[in-house]
């Protein structure tokens, strides 16, 4: 039975690879431990700087006001950098290790056609559906902040951020993480 080849499969074909230079997109920096310290201090917002071409001097006041992030409810739907601090639930005895969490995320991601790479406690999930410019990839990392306090950071990596904000697309992903208690053994 004839089937259409997917783009992901095309990328693996020998004839396609000949002379093919994959486009390189700007990637966000890898996380560093400043994020961990930020949990103790008040968390500073990391701006996504958008290029504004015009000086707003001739703008109507309401046009100006409309640019506020607080008025852009699209942010409720986007996958953005998410850092959440996680507190141990009282009275509960949990013995899941960070490695087990990583393993579970991998298991869950595969049927959804994500390829998962991890190194230590950093993981990246690559969307194998390369239907658009720049795959949506997700990076996660587990930090230990204190013995009973861990943080799992999840963020987008690669891909076109502005495009996500303006164009809803079926590879847009929202991820949230609830009260995950992780311990290292």
């Amino acid at each position, binding site marked *: 039975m004839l089937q259409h080849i997917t783009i992901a499969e095309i990328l693996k074909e020998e004839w396609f690879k000949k002379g093919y230079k994959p486009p390189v997109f700007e990637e966000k920096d890898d996380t560093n431990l400043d994020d961990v310290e930020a949990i103790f201090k*008040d*968390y*500073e*917002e*990391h701006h996504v700087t958008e290029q504004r071409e015009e000086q*707003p*001097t*001739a*703008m*109507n*006041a*309401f*046009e*100006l*006001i*409309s*640019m*506020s*992030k*607080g*008025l*852009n*409810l*699209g*942010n*409720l*739907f986007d996958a*953005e*950098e*998410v*850092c*959440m601090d996680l507190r141990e*639930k009282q009275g*509960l*005895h*949990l013995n*899941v290790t960070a490695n*087990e*969490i990583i393993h*579970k*995320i991998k*298991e*869950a*991601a595969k*049927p*959804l056609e994500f390829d998962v790479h991890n190194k230590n406690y950093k993981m990246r999930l690559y969307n194998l559906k390369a239907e658009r410019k720049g795959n949506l990839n997700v990076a996660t990392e587990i930090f230990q902040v204190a013995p009973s306090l861990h943080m799992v950071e999840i963020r987008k990596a690669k891909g076109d951020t502005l495009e996500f904000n303006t164009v*809803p*697309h*079926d*590879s*847009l*992903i*929202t*991820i*949230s*993480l*609830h*009260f*995950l*208690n992780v311990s290292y053994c």
Partner: protein
Amino acid sequence: MGCFQSKVTRQCPGHEDPIILASQTAFSVSEVEALFELFKSISSSVIDDGLINKEEFQLALFQNRKKENIFANRIFDLFDAKKKGVIDFGDFVRALNVFHPNVSQEDKMNFAFRLYDMDGTGFIERNEVKQMVIALLCESEMKLADETIEAILDKTFLDADINQDGKIDISEWKNFVSRNPSLLKIMTLPYLRDITTTFPSFVFHSEVDEGKILLRLKLLKNAKGMAQLNMGS
């Protein structure tokens, strides 16, 4: 334990019947259910109580739960229809409904007017607009001289304040917006039109069940229907 158990039907404080909510809004039943997934993730992010408090709202909008913003405050206040200081699921759906592409411009204009009428006097006063402009500049880390801000306000009020009484009433606002339709851009979220097909979302849950942690990965309803993967430990 948190509000959201492993069962599909939940008796959470904020939860309303999706069928009723769908009948009151531009959303279908399955869209309301998809919104419930979003609501759950926001409402459990700081306190797991089935309600969205101000910090959780700020966290969802800015990824920073401590971030204070006068516009987010106004939106929050308008969502919090019962003035309880928290947003329940019914509030959430009914408020988001106004942002649906299929909802009338009239409803959107009214919502925007209430948004900008910060003190609820029924007028958008010049000093309110100035306050909002200054807040926006501050948020964007831009600085403008006071004369420049005044010039922007002059131009805006010349255009919008037809009877030149220093404030914009609802009919002047509607007239102004009809001539400047881009002002209502913030009042429409295209995502809402096909919320179940627009984005497949997955939410990592951790739930404690008999000493085990279950990681649930849910694929939010897409065109192929709800897919749910459970993994026991």
